[in-house]
């Protein structure tokens, strides 16, 4: 039993960056030549070539018509056979929604337990993951026989560690064809879809730019709209803006409006009254722009810019556009 398997995941025909991060994590467990990158699907030639160019030890194509579309049953059955065949010491995944769907079952099938969502790996295969919603770090170790299953948190490992390997000669590519039968696949997945964009849905927005009384006049809203467009964000507002009819009521965030929890909440000219705070306090990252350094919004913000929004907001819009 030897070697490290890294199960790569694709999107739109390309390997996803989180998969390269998983590969980078695997480099903390052993040298590149011990690493086997695994691509899986119904058509994997291009993916395999992409992986081979990274300079890993080997690339395996797990290919079968029944592996598209993704099903947990199909992936578990195919990868179980691969693992039996390869006998790795460690199996590394990126901690994606898809991996969360099948990897725990795969590990269980092998009598193992996945160490999921790992943020750091220390020498001697000590894996750190977060507990209590990030309020604690915990170190885990694999004990017992059989392969150790690990999945890595997106962004926790730097994919450029893998880029550094490039230039080595491309890895050899082999194909592994699992024995799959249609009856093994019990679920019938449909095509991915997005929710019909009916009304404003701040609740599911990933990014929100929210504007408050600091904007002063209705005609100044354009500034904030530009920033929201550049960031690909939804536009929201505090209550006075909607009360004035400058924006529709469904864009109001706060106790009498919507409760939101986006990844990024950028509050522009919002002082941070409690009615507003209760509607957005769950946001992952809060940015506040306000000219008053004592504005309560800064108490809850992760990042703040104290300054005139009429200068800061256009500068931000420019920076975002320039970065694209």
């Amino acid at each position, binding site marked *: 039993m030897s070697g490290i398997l890294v199960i790569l995941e694709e999107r739109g025909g390309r390997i996803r960056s989180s998969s390269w991060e998983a590969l980078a994590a695997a480099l903390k467990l052993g040298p590149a030549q011990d690493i086997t990158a695994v691509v899986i699907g119904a058509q994997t030639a291009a993916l395999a070539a992409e992986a081979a160019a990274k300079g890993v030890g080997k690339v395996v194509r797990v290919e079968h018509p029944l592996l598209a579309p993704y099903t*947990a049953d199909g992936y578990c059955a195919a990868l179980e056979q691969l693992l039996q065949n390869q006998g790795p010491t460690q199996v590394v995944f990126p901690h994606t*929604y898809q991996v*969360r*769907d*099948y990897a*725990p*079952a795969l*590990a*269980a*099938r092998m*009598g193992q*337990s*996945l160490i*999921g*969502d790992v943020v750091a790996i220390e020498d001697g295969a*000590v894996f750190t*993951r977060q*507990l*209590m*919603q990030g*309020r*604690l*770090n*915990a*170190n*885990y*170790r*694999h*004990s*017992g026989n059989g392969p150790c299953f690990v999945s890595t948190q997106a*962004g926790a490992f730097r994919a450029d560690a893998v880029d550094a390997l490039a230039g080595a000669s491309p890895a050899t590519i082999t194909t592994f064809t699992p024995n799959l039968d249609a009856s093994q696949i*019990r*679920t*019938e*997945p*449909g*095509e*991915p*879809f*997005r*929710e019909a964009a009916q009304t404003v849905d701040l609740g*599911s927005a*990933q990014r929100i730019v929210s504007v408050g009384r600091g904007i002063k006049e209705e005609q100044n809203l354009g500034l904030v709209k530009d920033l929201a467009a550049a960031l690909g964000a939804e536009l929201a507002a505090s209550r006075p803006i909607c009360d004035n009819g400058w924006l529709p009521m469904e864009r109001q965030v706060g106790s009498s409006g919507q409760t939101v929890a986006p990844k*990024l909440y950028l509050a522009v000219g919002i002082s941070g009254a409690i009615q507003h705070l209760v509607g957005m306090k769950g946001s992952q*990252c809060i*940015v506040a722009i306000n000219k008053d*350094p004592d504005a309560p919004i*800064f*108490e809850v913000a*992760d*990042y*703040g*810019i*104290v300054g005139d929004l009429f*200068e*800061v907001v256009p*500068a*931000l819009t420019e*920076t975002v556009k320039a*970065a694209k």
Partner: protein
Amino acid sequence: MKIVVAIKQVPDRDAPVRIAPGGKWIDETDLQWAMNEPDAYALEEALQLKEKNGGEVVALSAGPERTGQTIREALAKGADRAIQVVCDDLGTRDALGVAKLLAAAIKPENPDLVLTGLQSEDIGLGQTGVIAAELLGLPHATLILHVEKTDAGVTVKRELEEGWFQSIEMPLPAVLTMQSGGTKLRYATLMGIKRAKTKELKSVTAAELGADAAPVVVLEQIALPKKQKSTQILPGSPKEAAAALIEKLKTEARVL
């Protein structure tokens, strides 16, 4: 439709996090406990399915005596009866060990559907439901927002990344892990609490279930993260501050 909902009791989100002597787990004295929120959504979905299609909702929870409080909450919200797997070693079991306990308790019930939360708010492994499905030999789906009963089984709405969703048709029996926010939770009522007193609560021990506990993954040590959240004020001219902010949002906060 008979639905088993697996529920975990977790420390309250506001609970103070102090590390217990030995450094392997938090100090549980003075902790307030609550129902794991994704499990609360699983329970809600189960209750709605029952209200629509009839049947029975059985609440299942493993843990020490104090778990009874959370089980009663589930009964108060509308579960018909409950099973408590009494065990004091939940913390030292790995995900596989916990899932073995639950699967052993679920099996004799022969449910049509097993629902549980996507992950727990304390350990957050997000695996128990999936492993239980594997152990029970049932199909599963994760990150489910909504369940619709069909003639052949169920149609579920699964969340994918970046705002995408997917419908999946599955046969029954099956195991689903529920994502938070797919529906609205009901509040507990006085009437519910009073009615819960008369509902059946069956208690079994881990030993009776015969689920072994030898872990393959061990938690060695816990520690408080060094960095505490504080507001970073970005100085400089508007241009400089803007540039610094975008950089931090990309590399530090990773939200762009």
